[in-house]
């Protein structure tokens, strides 16, 4: 072992070393028995993990599986409680973010961590100039560094442009270039495809291939990996802090990945096509917003669960927000129960008994520092108000009742909602809207960041909502989820609805092909 390590410590010549032929001993990163405890919780439990130069690895796992902890340890943000980390053959003790960067391990966060107010050149060169320990900043040097890296991946972005003016895909490229400017030998990409359109994903994958040829290793961290599977050599799946599967990328497909991630074999059964209630609940006519979506028309009946899917950038989130008045379409009509709802007015939408549970619970959905009770009750203030004064007893009783009905597990409903697990948090958000007796409930990513058990429960709740005669729109890129809950699925691409399937008439693979095509 130690001899092999010494060999690895020698400078590698990655360009001449094809990725598939690397032997075990030449690993760039070697983590053995890495364990991490947080205040009594074991986030990571004896995980072995290796990365070879020029290799792309999918690190898969649901939220809470330990994948972000692993990344944090590898990038020096957190320290492992036990285990050994070798980078380039060298044992790293007390790894700091700076050490990791110096060793060539760079993380591209989901939000890219760029500076909106600085130029492209500076964003790319900043980290490099910093690690070089420069005191003096030279615009010319920064531009040269940036130009060199951009050329290396064959991309042209105006160097003087302010970052905030760039589209998301370009921001991501800038983030990649910044890593490359620091002589990255391993780039860790957190949810890399989330914000990209299909075309942009393809362009990104081309660049990844190029980087691999140049000897740079890549780790994709994601809960949704079908898109990056094509360029990956290896897949590592974590669940509950343990490595549960590892193998050649060719051995996995979207379905088996999901199975490993969730630990469940059987997919939930589809509710089948909608029998029809004969009562039109929602009619959307020619809804249009420049740059987001166009010519959207569909209708749904009471009791129907409608899925809307599409890659990010397909306009699905904008459409969902537009239905609740958070985005103002330029033209079109939204009719609920025969009455037109004013566009771009969330208050009027709420009055029309439309509910919207946002995707990002932490920043959009919940009031984290406030009590669980308040988070539910805030939806029903108007109904419990007499001349402005709240009828406290009624409000508390009603909210507690909803929390009970949705099976929110908590020792005290007066505890801050941030003390709950992801699944319970989502139930609190649902309880708020359900207590308002909505006619139409729009759920954006209802099970994002929710543990496996709660996910099934939330799906039960969604199906049950349909049975109660509500209209439910589920916006998601989690295809098994859509198949398990929806009577009908609309596929969006480039801002338009391109396909429509009745429940039970399409398989997950077929649907994912429709999405990517």
């Amino acid at each position, binding site marked *: 072992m130690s001899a092999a390590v010494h060999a690895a410590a020698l400078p590698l010549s990655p360009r001449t070393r094809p990725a598939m032929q690397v032997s075990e001993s030449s690993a760039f990163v070697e983590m053995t028995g890495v364990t991490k405890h947080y205040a009594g919780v074991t986030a990571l439990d004896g995980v072995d993990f290796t990365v070879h130069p020029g290799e792309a690895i999918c690190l898969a796992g649901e939220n809470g599986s330990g994948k972000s902890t692993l990344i944090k340890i590898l990038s020096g943000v957190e320290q492992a409680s036990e285990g050994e980390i070798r980078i380039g053959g060298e044992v790293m003790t007390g790894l700091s973010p700076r050490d990791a960067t110096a060793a060539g391990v760079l993380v591209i966060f*989901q*939000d*890219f961590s760029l500076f*909106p107010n600085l130029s492209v050149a500076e964003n790319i060169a900043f980290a490099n100039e910093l690690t070089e320990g420069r005191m003096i900043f030279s615009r010319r040097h920064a531009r040269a560094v940036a130009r060199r890296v951009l050329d290396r991946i064959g991309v042209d972005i105006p160097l003087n442009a302010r970052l905030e003016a760039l589209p*998301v895909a370009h*921001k991501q490229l800038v983030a990649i270039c910044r890593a490359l400017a620091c002589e990255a030998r391993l780039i860790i990409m957190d949810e890399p495809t*989330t*914000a990209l359109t299909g075309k942009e994903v393809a362009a990104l994958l081309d660049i990844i291939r190029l980087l691999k040829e140049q000897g740079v290793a890549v780790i994709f961290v994601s809960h949704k990996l079908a898109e990056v599977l094509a360029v990956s050599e290896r897949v590592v799946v974590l669940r509950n802090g343990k490595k549960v599967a590892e193998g050649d990328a060719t051995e996995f497909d979207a379905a088996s990945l999901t199975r490993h991630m969730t630990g469940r074999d059987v997919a939930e059964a589809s509710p089948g096509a909608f029998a029809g209630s004969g009562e039109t609940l929602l009619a959307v006519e020619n809804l249009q917003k420049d740059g*987001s979506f166009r010519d959207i028309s569909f209708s749904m009946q009471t009791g129907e669960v409608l899925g809307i899917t599409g890659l*990010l*950038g*397909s*306009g*699905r*989130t*904008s459409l969902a927000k537009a239905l609740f008045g*958070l985005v103002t379409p330029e033209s079109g009509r939204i009719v609920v129960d025969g009455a037109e709802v004013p566009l771009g007015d*969330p*208050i009027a*939408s*709420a009055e029309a008994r439309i509910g*919207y549970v*946002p995707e*990002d619970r932490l*920043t*959009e*959905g*919940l*009031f*984290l*520092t*406030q*009590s669980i*009770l*308040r988070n539910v*009750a*805030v*939806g029903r*203030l*108007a109904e*419990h*108000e007499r001349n*402005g*004064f*709240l009828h*406290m*007893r009624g*409000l*508390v009783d009603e*909210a507690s009742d909803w929390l009970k009905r949705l099976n929110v597990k908590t020792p*005290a*409903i*007066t*505890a801050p909602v941030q003390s709950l697990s992801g699944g319970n948090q989502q139930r609190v958000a649902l309880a*708020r809207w359900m207590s308002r007796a909505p006619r139409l409930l729009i759920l954006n990513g209802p099970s994002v960041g929710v543990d496996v058990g709660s996910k099934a429960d939330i799906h039960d709740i969604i199906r049950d909502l349909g049975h109660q005669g509500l209209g439910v729109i589920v916006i998601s890129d989690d295809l098994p989820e859509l198949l398990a809950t929806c009577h009908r699925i609309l596929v969006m691409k480039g801002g338009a609805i391109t396909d429509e399937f009745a429940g039970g008439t399409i398989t997950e693979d077929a649907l994912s092909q429709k999405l990517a095509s």
Partner: protein
Amino acid sequence: MSGSGSRTEQSLTQAPEFRLAIIAVLVFALMAVMSPDRFLSGQNLTSMAFQFPEFAILALAMTITMTTGGIDLSVVGVANLSAVIAATILTSLVGPEAAGAAAFMWLAVALVASLAVGAAAGFFNGILVSRLGLPPILATLGSGLVFTGFAVAMTGGSAVMGFPDIVAVIGNATIWEIPVPLILFAILAIALHILLTRTGFGLRVTMYGANPLAALYAGIDIDRILLRVYVIAGMFSSVAGMVIMSRANSAKADYGSSYLLLAVLIAVLGGVNPYGGYGRVVGVVLAVLSMQFLSSGLNMLQVSNFARELIWGALLLLVMVINTTNWAGLSARPTSRPRPAEREDTT
């Protein structure tokens, strides 16, 4: 809902208000021990009750804006502008010799005018913050200058005086031995307490302060909430302006310039979170009491106004350090509020 449920759940001793109550008692005891005959004299206690309502009312105005995560730096400007306008009515339309029913009526007119000025000024602030999206710090900094500027322009910078005697009632009279300013403060404090804890509006204010974006997504009319918050702050400020005017028996554009710091200090001392989402009137009242005991003690020690400014500033810093520092993990990153999400660009 802390009004009904959380207090029973949360151990009383953990509440910041409990800590404050202890501080207030300690300061009171300290002063009483240091100078029992003077501090505990009825005269001293009464004079304290006359002194603190001016800035305490401003602190209430600060409290409600801070609960939304904002701040109102224009409170003193509003107070002085409304006082100047009321004073102008009382001097130019009435004059010092007025008495009886006529004087009372004119006083009422002046009070209404002053409240209207406060409401209008608050409405202006509210529009700047909610509709135009200005950061509250700069919006109220600028508007405060404008309000003060109007007061200067109206008076040429000099004091307006010569009121009917009845004006003194607001600041100097007592009802059943209780000073009128104290009564005014008590009414406003109780009203604000009820507003924040017992009304839908109050709960929405707190929720907005905790997470403005979630408030929008929960279907709360956030523009209207902000507008009302600043209008209330403006009207409270104008009441403070009336008390100041009555006690000084004049109105001037630059009265009470140290009150802005005091108002912020009291609100922060009272446990109001400057980032929004938490603020209790009980805490603010306890903070006011501690401050007044201390201030009164400093008076007896004949501490100068300048030294007092020094002490207030130091106290503000100390309280902030104690409130926000995680002493166990001082080496960890400072507790700063995350910026509003920077990744708003997902379609």
